[in-house]
């Protein structure tokens, strides 16, 4: 089981440091990593990721420059491009596939794209090897979850974690460290989902301290660490020094 799924914001602290960060992650044994594409209107993000996106945009981290920076990188975990839909739509499916091909991106997590809305766009990306990661939230009942998991299916054990997992949102609201999340409900949710499929699950939103990460691992799921990591990196802390104590 993948012990940790870190999230970083592309371009924060800087685009230049991104290749080094990714290499460091790989060296730490990180299998997959979510990389956020900074957006002007991150409606699902809390203050930490809003601010990180804002800084990154100010420093010129446009979608194209981010993808260019990723092109050709080999020393990197598998990447999940965490993004809002509009920048992808503006690039267009064809060009996007071209841009993704030379990068370590293995899947997309498009926060504001339900599987019903851009069926053709999504299908083309999927057949080009870029599946969309399903998101399940506390408001998603099991019935609905089943449909979501079916319509964004697990490509199967032959595929890397980055393309297989479903993202389970631990609490209502937006990304962010916030106050300590009560993990009991998400624990029950994870258990229920595990009866539905054997697909790997990641749990995110509000996780930061090692105890919480451990609790998620105890559920048999991969904890996501996002805002806390971004905040630490922005504060100048080293990637390894922050992640090491949280790696199981």
């Amino acid at each position, binding site marked *: 089981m993948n012990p940790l799924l870190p999230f970083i914001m592309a371009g924060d602290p800087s685009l230049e440091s991104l290749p080094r960060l990714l290499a460091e992650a790989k060296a730490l044994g990180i299998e997959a990593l979510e990389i956020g594409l900074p*957006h002007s209107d991150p409606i*699902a993000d809390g203050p930490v990721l*809003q601010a990180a996106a804002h800084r990154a945009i100010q420093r010129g981290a446009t*979608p194209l420059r981010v993808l260019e920076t990723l092109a050709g990188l080999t020393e990197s975990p598998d990447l999940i491009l965490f993004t809002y839909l509009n920048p992808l*739509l503006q690039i267009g499916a064809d060009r996007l596939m071209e841009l993704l091909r030379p990068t370590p991106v293995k899947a997309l997590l498009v926060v504001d794209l339900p599987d019903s809305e851009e069926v053709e766009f999504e299908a083309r990306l999927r057949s080009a090897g870029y599946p969309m990661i399903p998101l399940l939230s506390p408001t998603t009942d099991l019935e*609905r979850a089943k*449909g979501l998991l079916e319509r964004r299916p697990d490509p199967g054990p032959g595929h890397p974690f980055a393309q297989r997992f479903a993202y389970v949102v631990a609490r*209502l*609201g937006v990304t962010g460290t916030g106050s300590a999340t009560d993990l009991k409900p998400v624990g029950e949710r994870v258990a229920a989902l595990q009866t539905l499929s054997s697909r790997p699950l990641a749990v995110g939103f509000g996780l930061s301290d090692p105890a919480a990460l451990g609790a998620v691992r105890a559920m048999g799921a991969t904890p996501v660490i996002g805002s806390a990591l971004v905040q630490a990196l922005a504060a100048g802390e080293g990637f390894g020094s922050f992640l090491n104590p949280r790696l199981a």
Partner: protein
Amino acid sequence: MRATNMNEGDRPLASLPLRPPRAPHSVSGHSPATASAFLLPTRFGAGGLGGCYAPETLMQPLLDLEEAFRKAVEDPSFETELKSELRHFVGRPTPLTSAPRLAAKLGLKALFLKREDLTHTGAHKINNAMAQALLARRMGKTEIIAETGAGQHGVAAAAACARLGLSCTVYMGVVDMARQAPNVARMRLFGTQVVPVEAGQGTLKEAVNEALRAWAARCDKAHYILGSALGPHPFPTLVRTFQTVIGEEARAQVLEQTGALPDSVIACAGGGSNGLGLLVPFLGDALHRFAVEAGGHGSALGEHAARLDGGRMGVLHGCKTLLLQDQHGHTAETASISAGLDYPALGPELAALALDGQIEVLRASDDQALEAATWLCESEGILPALESSHALALLPELAKRGFATVLLGLSGRGDKDLATYQSKLGI
């Protein structure tokens, strides 16, 4: 003098044209029915605008909302409740005022103003806010979240919540809070918490961002009253449905007063709620329909909020529509003297109607709007909201094009804009 009976109680009941979007622009190939759990059409026009581009956390609340909406509009008790509030609290029907002096000044044969400025709280926004608040109460929600730009929707939501005993939080950009200060005070007097939004340019777009985030965190207890015909499905349909009372009334009134339809109908358009509210009931009629966007102070990106020419198709705040954006798909800055039109996306149904040739979209600049406000003040004794002044500003253009009888949606009163009028007009 004969003593006839002036009695509000004898007024005919309001019709609430609560019906799904019209066939010509309701079906879209972009959204296979199989994938969507919604039962109402989610898309508009040939281009399939609209949709529901929402984070998963909000999907079930949106589904629940659609279901509650569908049930409510089928339920006579909701109709009764809503009609009663519209009549007895909001003050509907609003008058249709003939403006003969302004018509003469501008070279029109006749001009009729649909007086949403006379509603309680002073703009059309209350039609939707009250309807959604009643819907929220039916859904067992006890908290309301809303965004506001000009503050009119915020005040309307605050009033509706006070009236129904719901708690209310309104998100508002800090720039808008400054330029629409009277409305901030009014919301607070109604017991509403007004949360300043510092991000970005501090206007409506950022307020919507923040309201969506707040809703995601409280969607188990809270309903989000979106204030214009935008956002993810079912909001555009919901808001438009609750606003067509404007055009339904106006159409009947102009027929009753003149025996004929006008040759043109015009309204301003921010998100598009008053525009659709007025224009949709005239869609089947042989007349010209206009919507007016904010031309701001220039034609470069960032200097206006004119989405038809300036925008490209994109997704913001849960729907696909004409959007002012840069080449990276980042939302562009906008500028308008009127907070209520200062928004980068045209509501999807209005955009679809524009692209499909049903509604012509024009723009008026800040300066044109300011001047037009003085025309109405001086010729008819009515102080328009800055938003509504944008529609007034196009009247000379309509006259030049040969239109003679115009029906104009006066979406709100200008009291909130007094400080701007004073400083810009040197009053």
